[in-house]
Every structure is written in C-alpha cells, then in structure tokens.
C-alpha cells in the first residue's frame, strides 16, 4: 500500500486539518466536472479517497476478526479472511470494508435470530455506530460481550463508544461549556435572522 500522505502530497506529520485541506484541493482537481470522465481521473479519485480514509479513519480501524488484522480500506481491498469468517457474515464484512454500512445492516438482518453469534452482534454494533445509531450499537456490543466475555476487540469497541461521549463533553467545554448565554430573539415566533 502506498503511503497515504504521499498520495495527498503531504509529509507524514501533517495534521488532520492539513489532510482535509489537501484532500479537498485534489478532489476538486480530479472531479469529473473538471477533469472529465476519464478512467485516469477516476483512478486518481479512488486513490485520494482511499488515502483520506486511511488517515482520517485510521484510529478507528475495523478489526476483521478477533485475531485482529486491520481493515483494508477501500475499493476491492477486501482481504481473504474467508477461512475464518462464517459464510453468512462475509457479505456484511465486505460491505463494512467498503464503508457501506446500511447494506451491511441489511445483510446482517438476513441472519435468523437464533444464529446470531457474538461476532454478529459486534458487526451489527460497528455498522450501527457508523450510521449514527449509537444506542443500538451499545446494546449490540453488550450482547456481543455477554456471548464472548473475554473478547478484547468487543471490549475495545465498547470503550470507544463510551469514549466518544467524554470526548464530546471535553470538546464542548472548550466552547465555554454547554451553558453559555444564547441570543435573545426580538421576534420569538418568527424565524428571524436578527437572533444572531
């Protein structure tokens, strides 16, 4: 795999902000409206997307199995973990690897309730968290842990879910907390721009 920072024209110590800026500049350059619908531009775009994904989502990498090999980002990057992955979960894992979480949840729903393993609940929690359903994700990861209490991947994922809340609160505090004065509106029942 090529160095994602190099793909974006950055040095490896670039900040997330710099990564986002560089990504946007390149995405604009290779956008079909600018570069035309050429295979060259499409390939370049995929590279840029994969590099962005790899850097920004790096801290959140998806562990494909309990033995913990990392998630291979992108486009056709699905690794042959099929020896370990039960057949009925493979489609869901492939969708998750392609970051298509709604499809992953659909694939998971097709597994009947009595066949849902700890791994099933972990995958479901992972996909739910990425569609914004953190309550569902928390329920599912608890189920996964109760089925396989010692599983480090599941425990780590639960920590990450709870960690998000405290990260949000910390960050929120830097805005003067969530209790500063808000604007009075001169026109309380009118959607009015004068409130700012």
């Amino acid at each position: 795999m090529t160095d994602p920072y190099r793909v974006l024209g950055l040095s490896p110590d670039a900040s997330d902000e710099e990564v986002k800026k560089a990504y946007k500049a390149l995405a604009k350059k290779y956008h079909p409206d600018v570069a035309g619908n050429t295979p060259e531009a499409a390939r370049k775009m995929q590279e840029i997307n994969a590099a962005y994904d790899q850097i920004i989502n790096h801290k959140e990498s998806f562990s494909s199995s309990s033995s913990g090999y990392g998630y291979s980002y992108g486009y056709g990057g699905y690794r042959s973990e099929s020896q370990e992955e039960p057949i009925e979960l493979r489609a869901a894992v492939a969708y998750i690897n392609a970051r298509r979480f709604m499809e992953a949840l659909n694939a998971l729903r097709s597994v009947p309730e009595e066949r849902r393993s700890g791994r099933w609940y972990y995958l479901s929690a992972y996909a739910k968290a990425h569609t914004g359903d953190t309550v569902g994700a928390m329920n599912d990861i608890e189920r996964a842990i109760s089925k396989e209490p010692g599983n480090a991947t599941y425990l780590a994922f639960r920590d990450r879910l709870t960690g998000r809340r405290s990260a949000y609160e910390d960050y929120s505090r830097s805005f003067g907390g969530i209790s500063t004065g808000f604007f009075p509106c001169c026109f309380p029942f009118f959607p009015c721009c004068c409130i700012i």
Partner: protein
Amino acid sequence: MFGYVLANASSLSKEEKERYKAHYCGLCKVLREKYGQKAMLALSYDMVFLEMVLSDISDAEETNGKERCVPHPVKEHDYTITAFSEYGADMQILLGYYSLLDKVKDEGKGRSEEKKMRALIPDLEKRYPRVASAIKTGLEKIADSEEKNSKDADAMALLFGEILGEVFVYDESSFFRDDLRALGCGLGRFIYLLDAWCDRKKDAKDGAYNPLSDDITEEKMRGMLLDAAAAASAAFERLPLDQHIFILRNILYSGIWSKFKEEKK
C-alpha cells in the same frame, strides 16, 4: 420540531456571525423566490447547518449580494447563496409539508396551508425520490408508534434520526455518504429528544403524546442527548471541513444545547 440546530452567538467572532447570517439570508432568499414570501416562515436554522456543511465539503462557489427583505425592509443585509441553498430550501419544504400533513391528520389543523403546499410536492418527490420516500415512510412509522403510545424514546428518536440522515445524504454516490448520514441521524435523534423534553409539560397538560416517561430526570435526559450529539460529532469530525469549521463546531458542540438550557431555567 425544528430550529434547534443553531449557533451560540456569544462565542462567534463578528466575521463568523456575519457569515452565518449571510448563509441564513441566502437560504431565505431562495425559499422566497422559489416558493413565495410565506415560505420563509418554514425556514429553520437546521437547514442552514446542512447547507454550510455541504457547501464546505465541496468548496462550493458562492454568490454574494446585498438586499432588503420583508422582515428587514430598512437595512440592507448580505446574503450568500451556494449550489446547496436550493437543496436546503427544497428539503425544508418537503419536511415541512409531511409534518403538516401529520398535523392535519392528528389535529385537523392546517388544512388550508396543506392544500396550498400540496401542489409543490409532486415535483419535489420526482426530483428527490429517495429522500421524499424516506421522510414519508419515516413519519408514518413515527405516527404508528405514537398511536401505540410507545415510551421507548431512543427508538422513537432513531426513527426521526433515520429521516434526517437521509436528508443529509445529498448525493448517494458521494464518498462521504455514510458520514453525512450518521451526522444527520445523530442530529435528528438529538432534535427529536430535545423537542420531546421541551414539550413534555405542555403535552402532559393537553393529554398529548410524549415519548418520555413521566419521571424522566434532567440527568437522564442529558445523557440521552449527549449520546446523540456524540454520534453526530464522531461522523462530523471525519468530514473534510475547513471553511466553516468554527461556526459548525460552535453549533454542534454548544449551540444545539441552547433550548435545553433555556428549558432548565
């Protein structure tokens, strides 16, 4: 149920306030020009947030100008219009219409407005089939559960979150599709819960439906809201935003709590 996603002006700079306001006025202008003066009554800050997120992601070109309008006839003000202002305006109308339809069915109120708005909907449904059907079926599910008097506030909030998640997905082929959906979903959950919290006393008095249990504590409520906000922010921080990032963070980490704080007093 809208209008919770707004900035905390006390911690924005003068320039940021003006920029935020100009995006609001741009959206308002598009609404008025496309749907008539009265349509601006439907405008909420939630859509300003969406418009600013979408235009930031794609570095959309801006049209800036100055105008006077009906609510502010004396003083000229700046407006900013981007390619996403129209999308925001259209979504506002779609969301507004289906919620109104609900109200007509439930309370028999708003029949004449519903009739006037109805003419706008076929075009919008044709143009945004995925989003329109998500809003429609989502609101139907919510109405069903309300009828059964569901007290599972998180499940109810998720139904609304799923609607807003779909609204946030401007383009299904976008690389950021899922992060936008998760952001919209988290915000939608937040809006629904906060709305339920703000209405709970009135609903109890009127004997109207409310998803929160009667003995809900402020601490419990805060935890539920925090979970929804954190889900939104996790997705938000993955998006390549830079232009409006301070304003948007101000909204997401501070502004959205304003009604919760007001309610406490």
